[in-house]
């Protein structure tokens, strides 16, 4: 075991897989010599060579598009979009090819790859650097979408993602990159994709969240406990395929649901979870399920971001309302 932050843990996951599987290649903008703008791939080029870990010209579409060709021809690309806000030029490749080639070729070719991208707000960033657009990917048939909330989960989930035969969108909450440290095993281990985790057991209300907002919910829960409210917290970990079973079981127990997501609420992951609650646990509900989410607006620049970012108090406010309904 070693104390690691999320950057260390992701770096180690990639490093272990590079050592193990000669077909893995790691590339993107600045990932080679510099080791990425967040240093997530630091030293990997030095260790594994510039043939396997390399910088590309600055073009997201061709990073993903050439990864499709590589995957088809037997390599396993683990690629980086420098920020999720820059993935849009690559959306044609992701939606039209990464997500479709298996179906189009009736299983003859696949595009197993991991597309990593830091996402989310809270770091006083420039424009286009703070969005949480996971719903776009979760809505695309053919993709799987993973978002870890701790260093240990990031490592185990990324190893699963790299070993998956399906393409994985791996979104990294950059606000947590260096904010949380924990003991992480230095061995290779994997955490299955598609499994949520119950972080705290409770009886009054279920909160489902993921990524950077897990920590905010946990802060709200300290105050909720003082108010005598017992919260069950579920870390979704995989957005798609969504772990319905864990969520439904919890709702059946508590009868109440609050979903906390950072991105725009409408048509989002919260809407999906509430639909699941309605379809699968309707008679167990004692209050209307509630979304706490970003506004359906552009994320404001740093001086206005506090209006948008979800605070522990905002979460507490909705928890209290739902419990008292």
């Amino acid at each position: 075991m070693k104390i690691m932050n999320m950057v260390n843990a992701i770096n180690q996951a990639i490093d272990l897989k590079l050592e193990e599987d000669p077909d893995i290649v790691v590339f993107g903008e600045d990932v080679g010599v510099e080791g990425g703008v967040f240093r997530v791939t630091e030293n990997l080029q030095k260790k594994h060579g510039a043939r396997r870990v390399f910088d590309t010209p600055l073009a997201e579409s061709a990073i993903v598009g050439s990864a499709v060709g590589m995957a088809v021809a037997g390599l396993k690309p683990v690629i980086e979009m420098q920020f999720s806000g820059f993935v849009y030029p690559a959306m044609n490749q992701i939606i039209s090819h990464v997500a479709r080639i298996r179906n189009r070729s009736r299983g003859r070719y696949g595009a197993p790859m991991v597309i990593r991208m830091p996402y989310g707000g809270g770091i006083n960033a420039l424009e286009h650097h703070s969005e949480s657009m996971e719903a776009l990917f979760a809505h695309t048939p053919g993709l799987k979408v993973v978002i870890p909330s701790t260093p240990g989960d990031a490592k185990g989930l990324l190893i699963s993602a790299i070993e998956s035969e399906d393409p994985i969108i791996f979104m990294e909450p950059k606000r947590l990159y260096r904010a949380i440290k924990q003991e992480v095993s230095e061995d290779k281990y994997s955490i299955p994709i598609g499994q949520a985790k119950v972080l705290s057991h409770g009886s009054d209300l279920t909160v489902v969240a993921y990524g950077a907002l897990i920590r905010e919910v946990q802060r709200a829960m300290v105050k909720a406990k003082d108010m005598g409210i017992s919260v069950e917290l579920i870390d979704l970990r995989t957005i798609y395929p969504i772990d319905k079973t864990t969520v439904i079981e919890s709702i059946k127990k508590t009868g109440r649901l609050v979903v906390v997501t950072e991105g725009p609420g409408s048509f989002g992951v919260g809407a999906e979870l509430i639909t699941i609650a309605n379809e699968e646990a309707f008679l167990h509900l004692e209050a209307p399920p509630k979304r706490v989410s970003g506004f359906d607006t552009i994320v404001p620049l740093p001086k206005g971001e506090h209006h948008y970012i979800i605070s522990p108090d905002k979460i507490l406010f909705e928890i209290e309302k739902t419990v008292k309904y």
Partner: protein
Amino acid sequence: MLEEFDSFKTEMFQVMDPAGNITKPEHFPKLKDKDIVGAYKKMLFARTADLMVVSYQRQGRIYTYPPNQGQEAISGAVAQIIRKDDWLVPAFRELGAWLAKGASLKEIFMYFMGFEEGSLFKNARNMLPMNVPIASQLQHATGIGYAINYKEKDEIVYTFVGDGGTSQGDFHEALNFAAVWKVPVIFIVQNNQFAISVPFKTQTASDGIAIKALAYGMPGIQVDGNDFLAMTKTFEEASEHAGSGKGPVLIEAVTYRMGAHTTSDDPSKYRTKEEEDEWAAKDPLVRLKKYLMTQKLWTDKEEETITGQYKKEIDRIFIEAEKHTDYPLEDVFKYQYADLPDDLLLQKAEHEKFLNWKASRK
């Protein structure tokens, strides 16, 4: 040859003029008489099949189809050069190249009849399905090229795009990455003068496409795409270049789409009869036939006999493809993921419940 016909000079490379005369004997490709006759037969087969599909479409027996008529020499030349392990990354108007790679006509018919199975190309090694989102396939070719270098394989990637596709950012990105990575990819632009209705001069102010290679740092050549011999010679040289670690090549094949963009298109809306006649005189099949007849390698009688055989064979294959009607619900789901999420199985099961309910009400 690639140096001699430098893209910056923008001189179109031609070996045989429209009358079938050899104008540049020094650039005659390494083909024996029987190879050229064989290539002509393949082009004739592709032309015959292509025209028949258009007529099947008119009879309502197949859906939308993009005709190849007028562009057969380009695919015909690729067919001569491409090896079993080489990759073919198609656009959607290179029927002869697909067939050469081992795609069956039945599969091709099935695809345009509405079955994904038609994209399987069971016997075609290293060939991707045809590609509809314009120019996006070029990036896959570049990536395959990277994998070939990485795995130190002796393979070359042949990829196609049209003149309209060169306006896409993906064209630029794919060529740029390919040149930086020095990958063995041959980019073939079929400049057939129109992107649906938009003429080449509206597409770009550039003096041709081949010239663009210069800025990417790769050889580029503009070739008479209706000259089978020039196209074959070009692929000979390009494959030599790409296969010897020198990186990609850009080939602009100047041609003309004699038919419609697809069977849903009406070219009379955007081009003149005069222009069509002018290009009909440069028809790649007529040209090669003239050459073969001058060389006493081909006769009208042979052509008549073999065309009759082809028509019968193509019709037989078409009818065989028409017999394939079954598209089980399961097939909608089963190829979406390698590891299918339970939720998709559930969606299928729910739909089956509905189907049972519907059946019970009959």
